[in-house]
């Protein structure tokens, strides 16, 4: 029994140490990103890679989610004679919650693991050490650029995914009930308010930051050896996914407080 409790304490301790180290890493990011030298060229390059690499996946996933969500919801709405509410229901669900969290989870898998593996292999092959011994700051060049790029690109990817999801939903409605484009999107814009769009967009910046932060942290402090790279990429996805749900919960909680003020 004592051994069991000792193990639990060990796990909690390791978790708290990890949280502390990630917080310290985040603190270093905020401390260093405000001051020169600024790596504008590298930030743009990372924005391009991160955005471009995920565009197709986010687009296809968003489109299919829109299709499936509408197809699955139709029978239930039909039972209540509420099919005409489809556009409203789908758009609010997609914009407020499904779009941001699904896109962020996809990007955690695609971008977070990519950053973890890339920096991890650079660490293992001593490329990060080589940058350091040449007197340049690898944190500035590798970490700050990637975190900024994910923070800036994720909201754009979410918007792209949301648009395609709603378009997918429209296609189902068009095929099933011959709903016109104008009617469908009129309903969408009628129901959506700024209070739906703004908080949902703000939280995507935090999602992007989390993806970049954890990916970079895991890669930058990767264990030695090729297995370390694999572990770094894997841990980047697992940790980021968990953190995304925590951020999402906090965002919804805070948003609800403002709604009821």
């Amino acid at each position, binding site marked *: 029994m004592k051994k069991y409790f000792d193990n639990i304490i060990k796990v909690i301790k390791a978790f708290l140490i990890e949280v502390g180290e990630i917080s310290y890493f985040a603190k270093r990011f905020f401390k260093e990103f405000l001051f020169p030298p600024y790596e504008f060229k590298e930030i743009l390059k990372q924005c391009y890679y991160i955005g471009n690499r995920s565009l197709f996946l986010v687009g296809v996933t968003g489109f299919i989610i829109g299709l499936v969500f509408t197809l699955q919801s139709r029978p239930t709405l039909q039972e209540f004679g509420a099919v005409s509410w489809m556009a409203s229901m789908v758009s609010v669900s997609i914009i407020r919650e499904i779009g941001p969290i699904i896109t962020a989870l996809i990007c955690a898998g695609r971008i977070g693991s990519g950053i973890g593996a890339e920096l991890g292999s650079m660490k293992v092959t001593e*490329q990060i050490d080589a940058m350091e011994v040449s007197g340049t700051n690898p944190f500035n060049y590798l970490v700050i650029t990637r975190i900024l790029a994910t923070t800036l690109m994720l909201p754009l990817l979410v918007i792209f995914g949301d648009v395609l999801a709603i378009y997918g939903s429209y296609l189902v409605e068009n095929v099933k009930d011959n709903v016109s484009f104008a009617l469908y999107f009129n309903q969408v814009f009628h129901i959506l308010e700024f209070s739906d769009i703004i908080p949902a967009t703000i939280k995507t910046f935090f999602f992007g930051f989390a993806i970049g932060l954890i990916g970079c942290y895991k890669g930058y402090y990767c264990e030695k050896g090729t297995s370390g790279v694999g572990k770094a990429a894997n841990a980047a996805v697992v940790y980021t996914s968990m953190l995304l749900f925590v951020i999402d919960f906090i965002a919804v909680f805070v948003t609800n407080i403002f709604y009821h003020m």
Partner: protein
Amino acid sequence: METTATKHPIIIIKDLYKSFGKNTVLNGFNLILNEGENVVVMGKSGSGKSVMAKCVIGLETPDSGTISVMNEEINTLKQEVIDELRTEIGFLFQGSALYDSMSVRENLEFPLRRHTKKFGTIKDTTPLVLEALESVGLASAINLMPNELSGGMKRRIALARTLILKPKIILYDEPTTGLDPITAKEIIVLMKSIQEKYNTSSIIITHDVDCAKAIANRMILLIDGINYIEGTYKNLKKSIDPKVQAFFK
């Protein structure tokens, strides 16, 4: 190798201790490198040679002991001062450590970007890049990517990247390991020519006896974390100590 060294110490390591958990790697290591001198540090794998070199460049922090590089005690310096000092110390990594995502040109340009104090603002880096590449005989590789280079070429490019900052000291970590004998000999010749051309002082970490013979002014055998024996190649080779002889068999 004939010595051109003067008796001006450029690196002084005193009583260096370093452990990783319960594993003590350096156990009171001492070294003095004089200007223009090539000191070879030999030891078995895992004996702490690379750790010692990483302590000198500030990549590892020793548990105790002092390291003085060009009269600056490395452990007490601020990061900005260390970064400036690092322009005077080149480090050739065992695996070359070229940046995968950059071309050879970009690999060489990268170290120049921060050192405006030493070089001023450089508008056109091409002459500096070409000069460094010509020193290692690979000017034609300027636009290649690292994955297009052989092991020997990678080592040469890494050396060129080290030279571009015009360092006074070069630390070589296993410069010939993993290379075929012919390429290894070429690298040794290159190291000698660089020392003559740039008048650098070097610490060469190796367990390649041929490399040590060709380049060492002085040798240190690192056994159990301390300087087990020190002297010229000839003196060490004559030693009847079995631990020393084991390296020359």
